[in-house]
């Protein structure tokens, strides 16, 4: 048993901890607080403690568990809310009250709950790691697959109700040794779970958010970086992605963020319907909440806990979206701990390994062929990371290192947010490196003219920025009518396509079909307006067309009445025909 030697906040030093290894989980002090060894010099182990260390004294005992930090994986993860080291917050509240007090511990998975296990594998069957042994209906919409933890031959397998610790299957390995299988397994959080093969990203993750799906599509298995100053809408965007993206599983990690925001997710998600299954969103969600005032070392761990759970569901063959809000707080946790270790700091005080850690994390995203005999089972983890750059200036280490490894950059802009243009992504500064690889999918699944429409709309928005500069100098009236007409169209693009209210019951989500129709109609208006101006029709008359009002209301048309939006296309033609400009 080791002895505590020094305490200076969340980092403590212990001497002579028997059997200590790097990254082992240790129990610190008389209250047996959870910690992790992060540095070893001679007989001294430096430990980051996942709980408050006030009142702990030198001389108290320290003991290693001999294992690195791990998560429990098995039925019961969905609908849970965990802290950074996977302690269930609901159980902790029942045990310890409304405040998180020290030394509380609770099992991540409920040990008493019985799950109905339905065998899929037969006895006598040879299985490989990752093969589905059986299933459990975890929530109404998600079937949890129990996967073989090792190769071998199924000796026996039982149907019925079991807890996560009860044996459901026996597998005989090649050496003839019998190993029992339970529904729960552990995995070290800092190690990524293996997959058979990684695929290129060629299927989009449809988010229902028009600016993203139209201009900056996200691929399943891709990685996204959303930097923005406070108040620009990072959190609302993350919530929107969590609610509407077409993945089966959502893992949401609130890393060093606000307590009330997690409460919002907790109260809202059980009442929100998944648009496809009509079941509560919570039924497919795992929440990890390590708010800013909870211990900083657990905040560092929370990201790893989240991504490991995401990978576990990926291995079952699900598409998983991981929302990390915010990775800056995670980086700051590293900085804080690095500072306590008196490490030589890199840029802006962040540790020199910041870039490596960020890259390692985002590399855990991907669309893969899962392990196992079934070669058709694929799953994906898409990582959407929010970044909170100081002062909103992305010339800082966390944003820059994140941009180097992520493929989609959604630039939140404070001035757009201030004029309540939401989502406040700047259309000229954002980018997606997936556009080209996904074009094929859009052409096949949405419309053959999709790519042309998208490119034209983007070109118009770019032209608008150039025209804006001229307007700033000479005023809008000095522009030729044709260019003024362009400005009218781009205003429509901005207000009627890009702007989308997360709080409007219909507007909050747009199907691809609806997005296409809105885009098509605006561009049709644009073509007709340009043609009319060229024929000498006064712009004023075009501006007075009542059809503009209806274009503005397109986004409020519910999905089941989309034919109205479709029909609006021919009405635009009619309105212009009425102007006498064929």
């Amino acid at each position, binding site marked *: 048993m080791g002895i505590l*030697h*020094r*305490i*200076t*906040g969340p980092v403590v030093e212990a001497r002579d901890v028997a059997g200590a290894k790097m990254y082992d989980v240790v129990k610190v002090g008389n209250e047996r607080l959870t910690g992790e060894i992060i540095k070893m010099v001679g007989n001294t182990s430096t430990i980051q403690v996942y709980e408050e*260390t*006030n*009142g*702990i*004294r*030198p*001389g108290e005992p320290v003991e290693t568990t001999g294992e690195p930090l791990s998560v429990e994986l098995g039925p019961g993860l969905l609908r849970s809310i965990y802290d950074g080291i996977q302690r269930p*917050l609901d159980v902790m509240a029942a045990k*310890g009250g*409304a*405040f*998180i007090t020290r030394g509380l511990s609770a099992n991540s998975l409920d040990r008493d709950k019985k799950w109905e296990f339905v065998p899929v594998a037969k006895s006598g069957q040879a299985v490989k790691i990752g093969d589905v042994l059986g299933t459990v209906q975890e929530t109404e919409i998600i079937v949890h697959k129990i996967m073989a933890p090792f190769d071998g031959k199924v000796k026996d397998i039982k149907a019925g109700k079991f807890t996560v610790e009860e044996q459901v299957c026996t597998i005989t390995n090649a050496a003839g040794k019998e190993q029992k299988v339970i529904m729960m397994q552990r995995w070290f959080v800092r190690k990524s779970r293996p997959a058979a093969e990684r695929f290129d990203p060629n299927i989009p993750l449809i988010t229902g958010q028009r600016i993203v799906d139209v201009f900056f599509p996200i691929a399943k298995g891709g990685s996204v970086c959303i930097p923005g100053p406070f*108040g620009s809408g990072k959190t609302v965007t993350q919530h929107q992605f969590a609610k509407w993206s077409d993945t089966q599983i959502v893992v949401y990690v*609130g890393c*060093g963020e*606000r*307590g*009330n925001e*997690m*409460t*919002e997710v907790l*109260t809202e998600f059980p009442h929100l319907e998944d648009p496809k299954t009509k079941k509560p969103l919570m039924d497919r969600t795992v929440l990890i*909440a390590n*708010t*800013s*005032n*909870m211990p*900083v070392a657990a905040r560092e761990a929370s990201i790893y806990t989240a991504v490991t759970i995401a990978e576990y569901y990926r291995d079952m063959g699900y598409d998983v979206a991981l929302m990390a809000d915010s990775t800056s707080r995670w980086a*700051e*946790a590293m900085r*804080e701990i690095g*500072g306590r270790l*008196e490490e030589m*700091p890199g840029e*802006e*005080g962040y540790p020199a390994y910041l870039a490596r850690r960020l890259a390692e994390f985002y590399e855990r995203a991907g669309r893969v062929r899962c392990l196992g005999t079934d070669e058709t089972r694929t799953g994906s983890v898409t990582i959407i990371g929010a970044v909170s750059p*100081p*002062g*909103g200036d992305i010339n800082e280490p966390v944003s820059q290192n994140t941009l180097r490894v992520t493929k989609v950059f959604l630039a939140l802009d*404070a001035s757009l947010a*201030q*004029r309540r*243009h939401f989502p406040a992504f700047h259309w000229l500064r954002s980018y997606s490196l997936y556009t080209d690889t996904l074009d094929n999918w859009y052409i096949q699944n949405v419309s053959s003219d999709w790519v042309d429409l998208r490119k034209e709309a983007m070109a118009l928005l770019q032209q608008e920025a150039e025209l804006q500069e001229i*307007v700033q*100098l*000479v*005023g*809008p*009236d*000095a522009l030729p009518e044709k260019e003024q007409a362009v400005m009218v169209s781009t205003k429509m693009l901005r207000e009627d396509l890009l702007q989308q209210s997360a*709080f409007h019951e219909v507007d909050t989500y747009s199907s691809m079909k609806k997005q296409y129709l809105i885009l098509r109609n605006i561009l049709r208006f644009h073509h007709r307006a340009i043609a009319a101006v060229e024929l000498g029709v006064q712009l004023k008359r075009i501006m007075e067309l009542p059809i*503009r*009002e209806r274009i*503005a*209301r397109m986004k409020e048309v519910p999905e089941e009445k989309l034919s109205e939006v479709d029909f609006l296309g021919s009405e635009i033609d009619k309105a212009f025909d009425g102007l006498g400009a064929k």
Partner: protein
Amino acid sequence: MKEYKTVTKIAGPLVFVEGVNDIGYGEIVEIQLPSGERKKGQVLDTQKGLAVVQVFGTTAGINLEDTTVKFLGETMQIGVSSDMLGRVFNGLGEPRDKGPAIIPEKRLDINGAPINPYARAEPRDFIQTGISTIDGLNTLVRGQKLPIFSGSGLPHNQLAVQIARQAKVVSSTGKGGKDQFAVVFAAVGITHEEASFFMRDFEKTGALERAVLFLNLADDPSVERIITPRLALTTAEYLAYEKNMHVLVIITDMTNYCEALREIASAREEVPGRRGYPGYMYTDLSTIYERAGRIKGKDGTVTQLSILTMPGDDITHPIADLTGYITEGQIVLGRDLHRKNIVPPVDVLPCLSRLMNLGIGKDRTREDHRGMADQLYAAYATGRDLRSLSAVVGEEALSATDKTYLKFADVFEKRFIAQGTHEDRTIEQTLELGWEMLAMFPESELKRLKKEFIEKYGKKYRKN
């Protein structure tokens, strides 16, 4: 209790005591000076044989030979009681008025503990402050933390007392109530003059008897500033969660708190972060701001209204920046508006209330509230942009619609933002004022408002 006379080093506010044993991290110490004077301090670093103590107050008069350090064996606590209402304390929680000592009903650790996110209840009761820019555009709800970002010389104190004076919860039946309402006020490094402004106003309106005041003034030791807000919040949590009160905590000025934090960090020779502030300032600030909220099954709430003055009016300064990332929005005061004599000079564009949607809408305020706020924002932002454009190209070069926006921006500032320090507007008055001003626009410009609301509320203000 352990007593030592082994002080070996004094540096800034830090005292190093050697030869000690088993001292708890964060433990409180009592230091007796050679003159007989007693000071308090807290353990920042403890190891076998050495403890580093941060002294509250100056280290003047401490020497290496005759100073006695007594370790009290417990972390910093405050004795709380409902008798604290109506009392004034100093920055360490000792009575500052002439009143008797407090007989504690309970002793609580001033650092508190994080609220379990699962145990939190969603804030949702609309607090009517009677100020249009807040109620209409950046609604405050019970359990929220909404700071005021100000600058030196701006009237943030006037705004804070106006909110404290007018704040009430309007229930759906339309009746307002002030029952079980308390104010906990923490002065952190402000001047005597400012402190007496608050005291006078609390006294005049009768709020003092429902208030607990903690005063650390500008000439009090800066290290105490680390303690003062935590005393206030511990008291607030006690009143809210154990005495079922709705507590409004006003902390002013958080900038002084951060300066004190930096002072201690540099005395400890820590690696500095941005602009010399410690790298853990975000975490540290969060342990203050996050102590606001509602808890399931408890009637009381803690709402936080902290004031900070942005050095150089710079919203990207680390203090304002980190605060904005933790709090649920911000109210920003603008110097331009102040110069134009607009009271309160709330610069609405950078303002935000993240919890607004929880407190507004049908059955809470009014169904048209969200759309109205968005529309006013959009119109004012457009108007402001056009102001700079018209400065370059002249007003004549603008289109008729643009001229309307320009006019709107002026009217909005003069009528909606400006209201004086004693006008208490109901939310209906605020919303109707909004409709009245929007009547100058053609309907096609009102894209943020639903058609049915325009029909229902907007028609009566139209001339034609």
